[in-house]
């Protein structure tokens, strides 16, 4: 297996590794070597105990070249993407199909001065030295084998930069789509968001699957939140039940900054997201909200890690899951509090609603606290809809099946309501309501 990827890598590097400068190619080689040495994780790896990636490991994915297998297939149209556009048509939207930028499907309005939204390929062509210097420096290849695999091969994606003090009012939408033509390919893209000192920005990152093929998105996102900056990050994973999705988001926060994320995961054959936030300064606030919805035989896995490295920071995390059919959810929430991170205030909650007998949840909070003057709590629940709530709705004439939908939606809405951006919240609410069978 590794031999085939080595061959792919040499071919890719020989082509200039996505036409980058020599230092970038060297950086990719380093990442590849790390990946080749580690291989894909196995169930023996504590981090992957409940999520077997064997089906990914035993597939010979095409990578390091066009994802499209050349068989053609229908081109993606604007109408195909309509359900995934999410926000207003006026939002700046970059669309990538099977890892390739699709200018015809994207929308690039004039942005406020100091804001740039470009593709990784464009950024590399415009300022190769900058990309060479920063490539894979936040979400480094050593985090997981998948992050190394991605760093070796990713040659497109999006780069968003918001200059110091600038306020970006409309969200930027980065939409990554896979199609039937991308079957058999490991689609590896990177998203980089840099919000400088005192700036404000919101962005939406979506992963969509058109068709029902076993697509494979292995993606990495890096978010740098400067001193006193404010960022809202919404991540939506909506792919087919046969999809493989492995995602890593690494966030670095400067002092006095505020980062909030909302992650919606609809699962797949394997859908795993690692969200890691490093609080690199005092008085940082980090809010992580998540909602995952599993049905059929889906697996949906969320791993979050919060690094409290400095004193006087606050992190607040609520992840909720709704599991139907024979779906399986995994939640692991780590909070590391360094000895010097006094006055840390950290709260983590994971709540799961089971709608069927066959659904399963493995939830594990993991707090490692080395400071003594802190307030850290966690709680996890797995349960069904409360009978007293059922009775209340039924006693008002609402049939039991509808009561179940309403109460399930209510469970989800509680966390959706935490999204700060009104247009994003409204779009998410519509999406979740439709998914759970509720009319507006």
């Amino acid at each position: 297996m590794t031999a085939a990827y080595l061959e792919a890598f040499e071919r890719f590097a020989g082509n200039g590794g996505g036409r980058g400068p020599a230092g970038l190619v060297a950086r990719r080689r380093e990442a590849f070597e790390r990946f080749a040495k580690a291989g894909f994780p196995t169930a023996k790896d504590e981090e992957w105990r409940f999520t077997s990636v064997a089906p990914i490991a035993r597939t010979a994915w095409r990578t390091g070249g066009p994802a499209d297998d050349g068989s053609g297939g229908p081109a993606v149209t604007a109408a195909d993407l309509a359900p995934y556009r999410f926000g207003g048509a006026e939002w700046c939207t970059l669309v990538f199909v099977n890892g390739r930028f699709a200018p015809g499907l994207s929308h690039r309005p004039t942005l406020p001065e100091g804001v740039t939204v470009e593709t990784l390929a464009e950024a590399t062509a415009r300022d190769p030295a900058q990309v060479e210097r920063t490539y894979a420096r936040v979400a480094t290849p050593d985090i997981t084998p998948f992050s190394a695999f991605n760093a070796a091969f990713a040659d497109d994606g999006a780069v968003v930069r918001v200059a110091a003090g600038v306020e970006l009012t409309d969200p930027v939408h980065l939409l990554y789509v896979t199609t039937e033509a991308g079957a058999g390919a490991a689609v590896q893209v990177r998203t980089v968001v840099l919000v400088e000192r005192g700036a404000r920005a919101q962005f939406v990152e979506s992963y969509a699957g058109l068709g029902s093929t076993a697509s494979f998105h292995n993606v990495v996102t890096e978010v740098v939140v400067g001193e006193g900056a404010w960022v809202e990050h919404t991540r939506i994973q909506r792919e087919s039940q046969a999809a493989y999705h492995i995602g890593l988001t690494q966030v670095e926060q400067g002092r006095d900054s505020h980062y909030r994320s909302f992650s919606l995961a609809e699962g797949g054959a394997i859908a795993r997201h690692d969200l890691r936030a490093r609080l690199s300064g005092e008085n940082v606030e980090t809010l992580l909200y998540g909602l995952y919805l599993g049905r059929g035989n889906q697996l949906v896995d969320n791993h979050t890690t919060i690094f409290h490295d400095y004193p006087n920071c606050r992190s607040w995390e609520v992840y909720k899951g709704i599991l139907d059919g024979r779906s399986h959810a995994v939640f692991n929430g780590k909070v590391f509090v360094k000895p010097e991170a006094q006055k840390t205030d950290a709260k983590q909650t994971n709540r799961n609603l089971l709608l069927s007998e066959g659904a399963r949840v493995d939830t594990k909070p993991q707090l490692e606290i080395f400071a003594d003057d802190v307030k850290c709590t966690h709680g996890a629940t797995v349960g069904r809809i409360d009978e007293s709530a059922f009775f209340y709705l039924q006693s008002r004439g609402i049939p039991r099946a509808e009561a179940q939908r309403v109460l399930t939606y209510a469970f989800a809405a509680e966390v959706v309501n935490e999204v700060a951006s009104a247009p994003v919240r409204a779009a998410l609410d519509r999406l979740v309501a439709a998914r759970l069978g509720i009319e507006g």
Partner: protein
Amino acid sequence: MLEITGLRAAAGENEILRGINLRVRAGEIHAIMGPNGSGKSTLAQVLAGHPAYTVTSGTVTLDGQDLLELEPEERAQAGVFLAFQYPVEIAGVTNAYFLRAAYNALRKARGLEELDPIDFLDLLEEKLKLVGWGPEIMQRAVNSGFSGGEKKRNEILQMAILEPKLAILDETDSGLDIDALRIVADGVNALRRPDRATIVVTHYQRLLNFIIPDYVHVLVEGQIVKSGGKELALELEARGYEWLTGIPEAAPA
């Protein structure tokens, strides 16, 4: 309208209702009183179809229809409404959505067209006046973070919108101050019509100063031990329940 005959019900192994007989005619208000643990709330919940209780014998009919074979939602559709002693909090669903869902569920069951949000708003405005509320309450999550009084008012608002044939108030007065009590009573009285009936379950006579019952029944250990007119409530207020139960009652806190 409502005929209860020989009704026995249990929670698990524990029999709570031990042969209730009661007839409520259209236009009447009946008060069910009794000491704590006498089974008053159980009776209210059994009539609404609470799954925690099993009916072991007896019959209950509403205008000739067997209520006991109906699901809770079917009872509501048949015109039964229970104002809960402890209304359930549903975070994440607005009062507006909940009320419209309930209203439309009843309309649908009766073969009527569902009301769209705009038309429903008109209806709502009129009913809100009845409980002295502004429209802000509709955007709050159902009962979530409501005070005790607000929850009870919300029950009355629901009742006003759903216009039941038979309203059952389960200790709606408990924990209310005099102003809230008056609002609740006004709501109930406004709904009074010759073709509707109300059962008021209460421990104290206080509410009955505002909602004047036609009949008062005293429930002790799962049976109606005494029935009378509204003056019976005053007698209970003056003498307590001890003369009927034979058990000394703790002084009210």
